[in-house]
């Protein structure tokens, strides 16, 4: 029920409900992670944030180059089954490389 509420709120906010429909409510202790505001951040928040908090991105920065960020996003899709569209994946890789890459 709570996940559904979050999905509805996400829909109102213009996020990707297909992903968030399955997302779990954040843990009570979880605080929002403010990533850098730049093009693609909405895709990162909607897709990556559905399965894990966004501090994973901060802690793995700034050392990954474009190839490593590409490999990480591909791993999330292929190995972890993240339902990310090709267009969103491209936007996410671009955002990560430009804002949290080397």
């Amino acid at each position, binding site marked *: 029920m709570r996940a559904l509420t979050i999905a509805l709120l996400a829909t109102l906010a213009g996020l990707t409900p297909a992903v968030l429909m399955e997302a779990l409510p954040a843990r009570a*202790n979880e605080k929002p992670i403010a990533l850098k505001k730049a093009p693609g951040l909405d895709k990162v928040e909607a897709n990556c944030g559905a399965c*894990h*908090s966004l*501090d994973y991105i*901060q802690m*793995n920065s700034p050392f*990954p180059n474009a190839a490593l960020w590409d490999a990480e996003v591909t791993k999330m899709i292929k190995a972890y*089954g993240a339902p990310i569209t090709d267009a969103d994946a491209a936007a996410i890789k671009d955002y990560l490389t430009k804002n949290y890459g080397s």
Partner: protein
Amino acid sequence: MITRRRLLEGASAAAALAGSGLPPLAEAAGLDLPPALPHGLRAAAVLESLPGKKPLIKLSYRPPNYETPIEHFRTAITPNDAFFVRYHLADIPAADASVLDPKTWKLAAGGEGANTEFTLGIDELKQMPAVEVVAVNQCSGNRRGLFVPHVAGVEWGYGAMGCARWKGARLKDVLDKAGIKKEAIEIVFNGADGPAVDKTPDFIKSIPVWKAMEETTLIAYEMNGAPLPHLNGFPARIIVPGWTGTYWMKHVISIKAVTKPESGFWMNPAYRIPIGKFPMVARFLTQENAANTPITEMVVNSLITSHADGATVNAEAVDLGGIAWDGGYGIQSVEVSTDGGRAWNAATLGQDIGRYAFRTFSFRVPAHARGKLTVMARATNKIGQSQTAELIANPAGYHHNVMHRVTLIVA
């Protein structure tokens, strides 16, 4: 503690990064993280308390990955409320959810490699003969954040480990009750936690039958004389002394004997080390291939815990202390060097509380001239294995046992 050196370093680093858009370093939050960790981690990590826990170093909220600050490693036993927390997947049942509530928790035993299948409740588990073992639980990727070049993943510093006195039933006794067929090769564990999306592989692990049948491989329901903390596997978890934490299934609800190798993601390709790079006595042969093999026993290691890197000491003698551990052969010796690794002097070992436990050590550094004093520790175990001076690179960033080095400022 925040040292002057670290403050200055943090300030200059912050100034250098002021134009980069990166947030300021976490030193402002009272953390003293190793400079070798990725900048992004040092900027984002904070000290935070999970329910029932002292402040730990938060690496990620969801799934929760929190490491233990070094000062909690000054004793051989790590308190439950300071014990690190590590999850792969974010769907963690609440402690009072029926799947974890001891009144309703059930452990299913069976599998095609067993003669029978049955379920056990917590009371039935506690009626079986109880065994206690003091053992180190260390994440395979402890110190991954110190790898150069960096390896992607959870960027652990030194604290993804702890040592506790575990009490539980022998896994062997449950397996004997199920009747293990001679064709069985592995014992497979699943826990009640799961992924956020259905397509993510559930965290399932296996160990070889020979390791499952050891007297100290347990289904533990107590940790340091108390029920397991929720985020350390309540109400019961698997204890595999000597082996890295990946096999220590939390919230265990299923144990299966199988006649074919477990083939899930978390056994292959995850948690693999290249063949031939590390000394390995305990091998997991049913999972080995030509290129790699599952990580098994911990490599010998030690950590200086009495002083933070960069701490200021006076010119009189300095009493160093720390801990050493290995995969269960036992610690033979710890040596300390004060000259960059040329000369080594034997440290005094503390009480031996078991071959799988942390072993404390102490060493008095004589009075020293003002300036920098770098101290290093090196442990050797009872089969002659010792720590490495140079990092052994491997794709997933496991088995970091480079000799720990702390620089003190003699003032």
